[in-house]
């Protein structure tokens, strides 16, 4: 299913925001690949830069105050950060679909569901009206909306949260994109509805072979569906691994802390390990490891040098000076 040629390649992406309090270093030198058909989980807390990274790729951040300082985002031979805006618009919604967290604010309240699904078909594909309608119907059916003919005429407020999110997914999938970016698509939903949406995306990925980037703060949500997981902290990727490796043997102290602080539905009795302190301020560029102030393993080097994201074996990349397994500094020669 996965070929070696990535469908999306992001390198050295740095995004900043100019605010009243100073420059916010939201994303710092982020690099990752997405392979065709792959399901990539991007995990991080609020302010970790996970959403800004993905919004930057499609130049969806407000500029100014936002600024993409450096970086490349290569999709199908072009750099999304360099091409002109008309060309980018072809790709947005056409080749790369986006689902946002809150379906209420991302759907237009005064337009019918059918109109909004057909809109992207109108923009990206040259189809006669009848075929557009047929395709919209097919999409609503695909995302599991009951009585789709009637729903085409509904307005967003007439639908429940779960149904709205299904409509958002239908809109995003309208032009059969190669990449689907989902930004916390289930965070606003109840757990039984979340299960429905996860199941839906899982099925869709198999039938359509779309690569998915699923942004979440919940390590549980991606455990069952992702192939690979990227963990972000303080605007940087701190660990990247295949899903099995990441959960079984996390190597970054932050990933370890995060997994340790999660209670589990299938176990009881463990004490929750809490990570002391709070997430870093992004007002300074990272000159040291951003996690060092909260890290139980931090030593001198962590406070003076920012560890780069480095491949430590075939399936894992890590940004940490400490070797947790051997209990000694890494790269110490």
């Amino acid at each position, binding site marked *: 299913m996965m070929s070696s040629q990535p469908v999306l390649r992001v390198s050295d992406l740095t995004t900043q925001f100019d605010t009243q309090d100073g420059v916010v270093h939201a994303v710092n030198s982020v690099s990752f690949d997405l392979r065709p058909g792959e399901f990539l989980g991007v995990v991080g807390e609020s302010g970790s830069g996970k959403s800004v990274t993905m919004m930057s790729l499609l130049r969806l951040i407000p500029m100014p105050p936002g600024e993409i300082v450096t970086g490349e985002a290569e999709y199908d031979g072009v750099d999304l950060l360099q091409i002109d805006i008309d060309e980018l618009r072809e790709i947005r919604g056409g080749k790369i679909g986006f689902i946002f967290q809150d379906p209420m604010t991302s759907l237009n309240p005064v337009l019918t569901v059918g109109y909004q699904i057909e809109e992207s078909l109108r923009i990206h594909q040259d189809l006669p009206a009848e075929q557009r309608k047929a395709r919209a119907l097919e999409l609503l059916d695909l995302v599991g909306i*009951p009585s789709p003919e009637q729903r085409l005429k509904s307005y967003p407020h007439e639908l429940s949260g779960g149904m709205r999110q299904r409509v958002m997914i239908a809109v995003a999938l309208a032009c059969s994109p190669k990449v689907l970016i989902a930004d916390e698509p289930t965070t606003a939903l109840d757990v*039984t509805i979340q299960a429905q949406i996860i199941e839906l995306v899982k099925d869709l990925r198999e039938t359509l072979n779309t690569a998915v980037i699923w942004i979440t703060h919940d390590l549980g949500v991606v455990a069952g569906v992702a192939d690979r997981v990227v963990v972000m902290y303080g605007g940087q990727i701190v660990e990247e691994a295949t899903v099995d490796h990441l959960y079984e043997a996390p190597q970054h102290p932050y990933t370890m*802390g995060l997994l340790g602080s999660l*209670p589990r539905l299938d176990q*009881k*009795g463990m004490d929750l390990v809490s990570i002391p302190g*709070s997430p870093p301020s992004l007002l300074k560029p990272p000159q040291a490891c951003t996690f060092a102030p909260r890290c139980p393993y931090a030593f001198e080097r962590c406070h003076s040098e920012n560890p780069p994201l480095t491949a430590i074996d075939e399936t894992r990349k890590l940004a940490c000076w400490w070797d947790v397994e051997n209990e000694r500094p890494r790269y110490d020669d």
Partner: protein
Amino acid sequence: MTTEGAAAPIASPRPYEEPLVSVRDLKKHFPILGGFFRRQVGAVKAVDGVTFDIFYGETLGLVGESGSGKSTIGRVMLQLDDATEGTVTFDGIELTAIKGEQLRRIRPRMQMVFQDPHASLNPRMTVASIIGEPLKEHRAAKGSARKERIEELLELVGLEPGHANRYPHEFSGGQRQRIGIARAIALNPDFIICDEPIAALDVSIQSQIVNLLQQLQAELGLTYLFISHDLSMVRHIADRVAVLYLGKIMELAPGEDLYEDPKHPYTRALLSAVPVPDPKVEATRERIILEGDIPSPAHPPPGCPFNTRCPMAEARCSAEVPAWRELASSHWVACHFAE
């Protein structure tokens, strides 16, 4: 605080056998007004007949999806909203029968920790005046005694005495929740309702707050009602758990029993929907995907509230409200077919 082996004569996780709070057939209906004369045309049955006890020193978890009525139950229990029907008894005093000064005298003994630490702290008050307000309002301490108590409280919740003169905006979400907790314990309450106390916090901060709540419970002998939609965290913190759906309790049991052997089809579906942060477990888990959405509490279905989504539903379920029965020791369920 964990359940001992099943061999114990009465499988009971209760540290004490006496209920501190008893809720009996509690209902809260919000009127829907309509028509030219703004007459009542219907009612949102937010809470529709719930009965449970909370025992001294225990944590009762109250779980449910949005719109299930869990927050409303909390608010009615503390008499922040009037009950439509039913009673709430706190330490032998029927709260639903008293008001005014009588009620005010009991208030210090029952407190609440709110979900959003941004909205529940007055941005114009210093931390000292926020935490000191209950002390002042109930004339518990003044002058230097109040100042000392405030410092003591700050220390109890893991803040520093130096924080007293700062304002809420200077703190992170987790620290703000600590301030909210300090305010709640200022008057040495017996009972605290924690209404989604961690829902607005980052994952790495949630466990800090839960650990603090558990530590305070052990130190101060508190009794908690822990309202949450996070079933994993409820398993961690609660001794017994009540599962709410459309304003009714579907199942109530000691935590271990509920999570290991859920009897109600809704509890089963709910538990199966919660993702576990372990790919190996996820790969083998069977997920019960419920069809459709929660019905509106303004038009709950007849019979069992869950019958519209229940995979086991039969004709009887939409005709007859299931009885609330004790299936096994302390394991209560409202389902015709649970066994």
